[in-house]
C-alpha cells in the first residue's frame, strides 16, 4: 500500500475533484491519497466524490489554512 500526495491548494472546486479523478488510474486498491485543498467547498465536494466512486474517506484534518483529506482506494 502506498501513500500518494496531491496538492490542490489554490484551486477552486471542482478542480480538486478532477485532479483526484485523474489520479485514479495510478492508484491501486488499498492505496491512500492525501489531498491538500483550500477551496471553501473542498470537504463537501470530496465527500460527494467518495460516495459516488465508492472510496473511503479516512480523515479530514486542518493544516495551516488548508484541509488535508485522506482517501483510501
Amino acid at each position, binding site marked *: 500500500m502506498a501513500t500518494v500526495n496531491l496538492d490542490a491548494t489554490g484551486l477552486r472546486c*471542482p478542480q480538486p475533484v478532477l485532479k483526484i*479523478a485523474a489520479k485514479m488510474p495510478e*492508484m491501486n486498491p488499498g492505496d491512500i491519497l492525501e489531498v491538500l485543498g483550500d477551496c471553501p467547498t473542498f470537504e463537501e*465536494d470530496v465527500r460527494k466524490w467518495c460516495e459516488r466512486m465508492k472510496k473511503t474517506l479516512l480523515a479530514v484534518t486542518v493544516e495551516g489554512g488548508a484541509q488535508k483529506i485522506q482517501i483510501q482506494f
Partner: protein
Amino acid sequence: MSADKRTLEEVLAAEAELKERAAELEQRIDEFHNSSMEMAMGLSDCFQVLSEVRGGNLGARVSDVTLSSSDELVASIGRALNDAIAEIEENLDTIRRQQFAIEELSTPILQLWDDVLALPVIGTVDTGRSADIMERLLTEVTQRQSRFVILDITGVEVVDTRTADHFIKVIKAAELLGATCLLTGIRPAVAQTLVDLGVDLSSIATLRNLQEGLKHCLELMGQSVEEDDR
C-alpha cells in the same frame, strides 16, 4: 430636478443595483458550482473505468448511469461555457455602467450661489471625459442662465498640455454662452508642470481656491461675502 438631488438618487440607485447584483452573483456561483460538480462526477466515472482497465479488468464498463448521462454531460459542459461567457459579458456591462456613473459623480456641477456654478474636477481628464464635462456644463449654463462658472481642479493631480487644452476649450465654450469662467485650485506641482510645459493660461482667470473664486464672482456681481454671511 436639481443636480444635487439627481446625484443623490443616482448614488442610491447604484447602491441598490450593486446589492441586487451581489445576490444574483452568489446564486449564480452556487448554480455554477453544482453544474461543474456534475461534470466532474461524469468525468470521474470515465477515470474509474480507466483505472479498472489498468488493473487488468479489461471487461470494465462505463456504468449505465454515466452512459445514459453522457449527452447530458456534454450539454452541461456547453451550458457551463455559455454561462461563463454570459457572466463575463454581464459583468463587463455592469462595470461599464458603474464606470459611467462614477464619471458622472466625479464631475458634479453645483450651484454655489445665484448665477454661480462650480465644477469640481477630480482625477484625470481625457478626451472622452472632457467632452462629457463640456456637454454637461454647457447644458447647465444654458438651463440656469448662469453668469459665472468656477472650474475647480483641486482634485486634479496631473495636468499635461492635453488636459490643459481640454480645460481651456471647456472654459472658452462656456464663455461663448455668456458665462464668465474662472479656474481655481491649481496645485503647486501642477502649476510647476504647466510652466515647464509652456502651457499658456494667460487668457484664463485663475484664483487660488474655490473660496477665492466665489468671492471674486460676488465682487463682480456687486455683492460681498460679509453681507451675505450675516
